[in-house]
């Protein structure tokens, strides 16, 4: 029996999550803004219908949004992450294997039934997710990942499909592939798309049918695999277990330009504390730290973008050790009269905790080392229990002015008891 590959993703996922927990915005145009209330990253169907574009900076369309009475929300990651977990838990029951590809997107495989048609299965899955979670999804079904992506795209583009398309039983799959622009094929970057178009290859069908040799000479085995996937031969297996992380990054844009060394030190310390916490959660230690800063590209002065790295003598996940190494980098990067818009901390050369290479010059005697580890564990436990920042490192500052702007944040309606929605009994 043949295997089917399925791609399921949420329609306007962030905007849909907002409507799940707030009935007042159901049926209204709504947009969600990126970090720091920068750009529009998700639009409800009603907002799309108004012609509001994806990715535009908020400040540019603010008046247009107000005129149309569009609801504007900051990104509520606590809510989206919880709804994502609910979605993936539900999908796992419907598929034999699942690869969580992004917050609102998953590949899955299952065996095709004898009848060969999975459209009814897809519709039942879609109905369950909509009823149980209140989230609309699109289901693309095909023989390979690349084709499942295309099926998903086509399922969304045509309202008559009602969000489900099985390419294997599509009467005219060739015509459908011919309607998919080359730029929209999964795995085709901007440069490769331009190269294809120069050769008259403008859509998915033309890419499938072009000579393999030419494609291989241009982009090697990657291009060949892509073409084979388009021809229905699966060569991109599901990635089921996330490989151990090689790097951990925490970076944010500032709500207002950072112009003092003290504020930059606080920001770097805050990001590093968070990154170190992630590191301990992952059971890893970092061998190197990179701090990077960037000035605003919009403020007229020349762009200042710089990074600095320090290699640790011994890999560590002790916040105090990492802070001591990272803060001098902030000093090195700071320039007076260069207002900064963004900074970040990248922890690199990660290795497993139980793999600490023995070092002749251990920084601390074993007993002290173990006490430090217990201290970190206690701090993490307190912050988990009482909320992030319950125990804070002094280097992060008390009332920072630069924290991310999220002025239109909805409530953590599914993850925080104090913020759950109200149901009227009136």
């Amino acid at each position, binding site marked *: 029996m043949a295997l089917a590959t399925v791609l399921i993703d949420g329609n306007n996922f962030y905007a849909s999550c907002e409507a799940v927990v707030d009935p007042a915005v159901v049926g209204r145009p709504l947009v969600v803004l990126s970090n720091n209330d920068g750009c529009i990253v998700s639009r409800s169907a009603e907002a799309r219908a108004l012609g509001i574009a994806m990715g535009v900076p908020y400040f540019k369309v603010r008046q247009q949004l107000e005129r149309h009475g569009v609801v504007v929300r900051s990104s509520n990651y606590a809510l989206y992450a919880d709804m994502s977990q609910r*979605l993936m838990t539900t999908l796992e029951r419907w598929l034999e294997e699942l690869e969580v590809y992004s917050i609102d997107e998953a590949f899955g495989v299952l065996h095709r039934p004898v009848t060969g048609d999975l459209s009814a299965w897809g519709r039942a899955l879609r109905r369950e997710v909509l009823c149980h979670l209140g989230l609309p999804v699109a289901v693309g079904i095909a023989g390979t990942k690349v084709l499942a992506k295309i099926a998903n795209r086509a399922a969304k583009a045509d309202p008559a499909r009602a969000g489900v398309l099985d390419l294997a039983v599509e009467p005219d799959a060739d015509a459908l592939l011919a309607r998919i622009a080359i730029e929209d094929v999964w795995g085709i970057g901007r440069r490769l798309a331009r190269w294809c178009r120069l050769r008259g290859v403008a859509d998915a069908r033309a890419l499938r049918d072009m000579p393999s040799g030419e494609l291989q000479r241009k982009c090697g085995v990657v291009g060949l695999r892509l073409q084979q996937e388009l021809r229905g031969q699966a060569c991109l297996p599901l990635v089921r277990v996330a490989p151990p992380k090689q790097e951990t990054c925490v970076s944010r844009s500032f709500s207002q330009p950072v112009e003092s060394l003290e504020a930059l030190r606080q920001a770097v310390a805050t990001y590093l504390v968070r990154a170190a916490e992630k590191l301990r959660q992952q059971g890893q230690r970092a061998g190197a730290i990179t701090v990077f800063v960037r000035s605003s590209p919009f403020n007229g002065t020349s762009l200042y973008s710089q990074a600095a790295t320090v290699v640790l003598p011994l890999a560590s996940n002790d916040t105090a050790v990492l802070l001591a190494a990272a803060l001098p980098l902030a000093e090195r990067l700071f320039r007076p009269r260069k207002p900064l818009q963004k900074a970040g901390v990248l922890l690199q050369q990660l290795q497993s905790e139980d793999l600490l290479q023995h070092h002749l010059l251990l920084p601390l005697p074993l007993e002290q080392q173990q006490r430090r580890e217990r201290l970190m564990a206690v701090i993490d436990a307190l912050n988990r229990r009482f909320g992030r920042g319950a125990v804070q490192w002094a280097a992060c500052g008390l009332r920072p002015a630069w924290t991310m702007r999220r002025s239109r944040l909805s409530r953590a309606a*599914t993850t925080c008891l104090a913020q759950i929605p109200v149901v009227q009994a009136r």
Partner: protein
Amino acid sequence: MKLFGLVLGVPLNLPPDLPPDLPLAEAVKADPGGVDLAALLVRDPAATLLLRVSGPSMQGAGIDHGDLLLVDCGLEPRPGQVVVARLGDGFTVKRLVRWRGQLALAAAHPAYPLLPLDPQGDHRLLGVVRHVIRRC
């Protein structure tokens, strides 16, 4: 709010050299210890919402102002059940009833009227209220 794995009681860790035919060891193997409260209250964590009640209209059904409701959105609401619906721009908790050949939402309080559900109206039945949580 973790709906997974709230366990009351301390799971027992028996010493490994305990004779396996000891009644205690057998009992522990059958039930490794503790009452999993979340499993008791929540059928499907992915489809469960927690909502806070505002208002007295369901007092007759044992639901009062300030209570927490565990709502199972994975169950299709049937007449007779206490349900949560999105009605206009708010959530509302009522008993689903049949009334003159259509569905309606009934309060459990004499001061509140019956709300007939127009099949074409702006509403959606979300799920069934499974548990009421109240501090005594």
